[in-house]
């Protein structure tokens, strides 16, 4: 396992330090609840094969907003960091 362990160490040297992500994770969890609630309230007990387009649209909209907000948050938090396995370590 030497190669794997040394690779993990090299990666740790390349990446920025982990910072608190409690805020964004709370946001994601709340949005997960809102998304499920939205789908449940707008679709109700319907169990047929012809779904309500508006119900799907509003549910999907909340998911897309969540993903975009999360992307903006991570880009801001880690200064546009993107892991590059071929980049040399900082040290």
């Amino acid at each position, binding site marked *: 396992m030497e190669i794997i362990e040394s690779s*993990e160490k090299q990666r740790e040297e390349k990446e920025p330090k982990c910072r608190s992500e409690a805020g964004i994770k709370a946001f994601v969890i709340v949005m997960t609840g809102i998304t499920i609630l939205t789908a449940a309230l707008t679709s109700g007990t319907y*169990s*047929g*094969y*012809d*779904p309500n387009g508006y119900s799907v649209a509003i549910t999907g909209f909340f998911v897309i907003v969540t993903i975009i907000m*999360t992307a903006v948050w991570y880009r801001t*938090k880690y200064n546009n960091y*993107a892991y590059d396995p071929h980049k040399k370590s900082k040290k």
Partner: protein
Amino acid sequence: MISVTAWEWIGLFIGMLIGGLAEAWGISNPEVLIRLGRWKDRLFVGCIAIAIGAGALALYGLAALGVSFHWGIKPDYVWGVALGAAIFGTGIAISGYVPGTVWMALGEGRRDAVYAVLGGLLGAASWTLIYQTSFGQWLVTYDNFGQLYFGGKVDTDLYVGFGIAVAWAIIMFSIAYLLPRYKGGKSCAYTSLHKEKTLSPEEEAKYVETAGMLLEGASMPLGKNNLPEKVNYHWTVSSKLFGVVMMSVGIIIGLTVVLEMFLHQIFGESTTYSWIVAKIWLPAGTWKYSTLVVHTIGWEPFSDIGTLFGAFLASIFFTRRFQSFNNVIPPSWEKRFGNSQIKRAAGSFSGAFLMLLGARMADGCASGHILSGDLQMAVSSLEFFIIVMISLLIVAHIIYRKVVD
């Protein structure tokens, strides 16, 4: 007879489970399917084989005991399925995506998935237009033998079906057991017979390279000595498809598909593209295919949103591969076509266009035909899977043969 019909929004949870597990496998990364086409990494074949084997046993075992299912077996219109499968395989080789992994990749924050969604919608719209023509009707009616499984007509002779399912599961598990995941690597059969053997330096290098490929573009640090590190460097890169983690994920996915059928809903990922087209562009009532889709799709739009959201949640909490739409190009594509974003966007768009056109023509995709259909032992789905693999291998060989790893 036990019979349950689920509310549509419950599909969100089923989609989240499948999307999350598949993201952890890594198949939302287009490089994984491109490497399958290059026959370098057969993860997809092994994992799907485990899911099909486990699911077929559960499905036909329960059906023989009197449990009621919503069978989603696709009709076998031989030429339409064959042509659709050939186009579908070509689209995968170009884009690295199947319809479900496009949703997962979007959830993982992959930039090229945005172009793939647009290409996929155009592909689905194209089939809605073609379906209206005499050629489209010929494709779906000529040599159409209806809904057949290996034991005869759908939902008949279920005891015979269970016997065939046992043999089918043995074949599927054998594929996963005997097929080495990595080119030049060792199969599960070999490693289980050589328990004293530790990973060779070459195998470790393969694990590290695969982990690097899966993590490339991640917009957050992985951290150390934590669950995501274990997931990325040990579990998802492992060649032991019969190991506890890989096997469990395959079995859970197979049983989840069976659960969907028990809940009398539809398992699929590509019909939603046609449904969106019907809602925003080619309305039901005017277009025959749109009319067909909007009245039969069931909870699939919800389960597709769940697939997208499940992959997103997994990439934040479990694998830490969320990319925040960073500029990432699959390594095989980059070695072949360079690092141009425009070229990759064009490849992603056009590949997804072909992939969705083929999927709708054949009436199913990797989910509806290859996973769900082959799990139900559908004749049309076996035909689809074989032709997709042949097409994928040939086209990927033509495109990437000059790529040196």
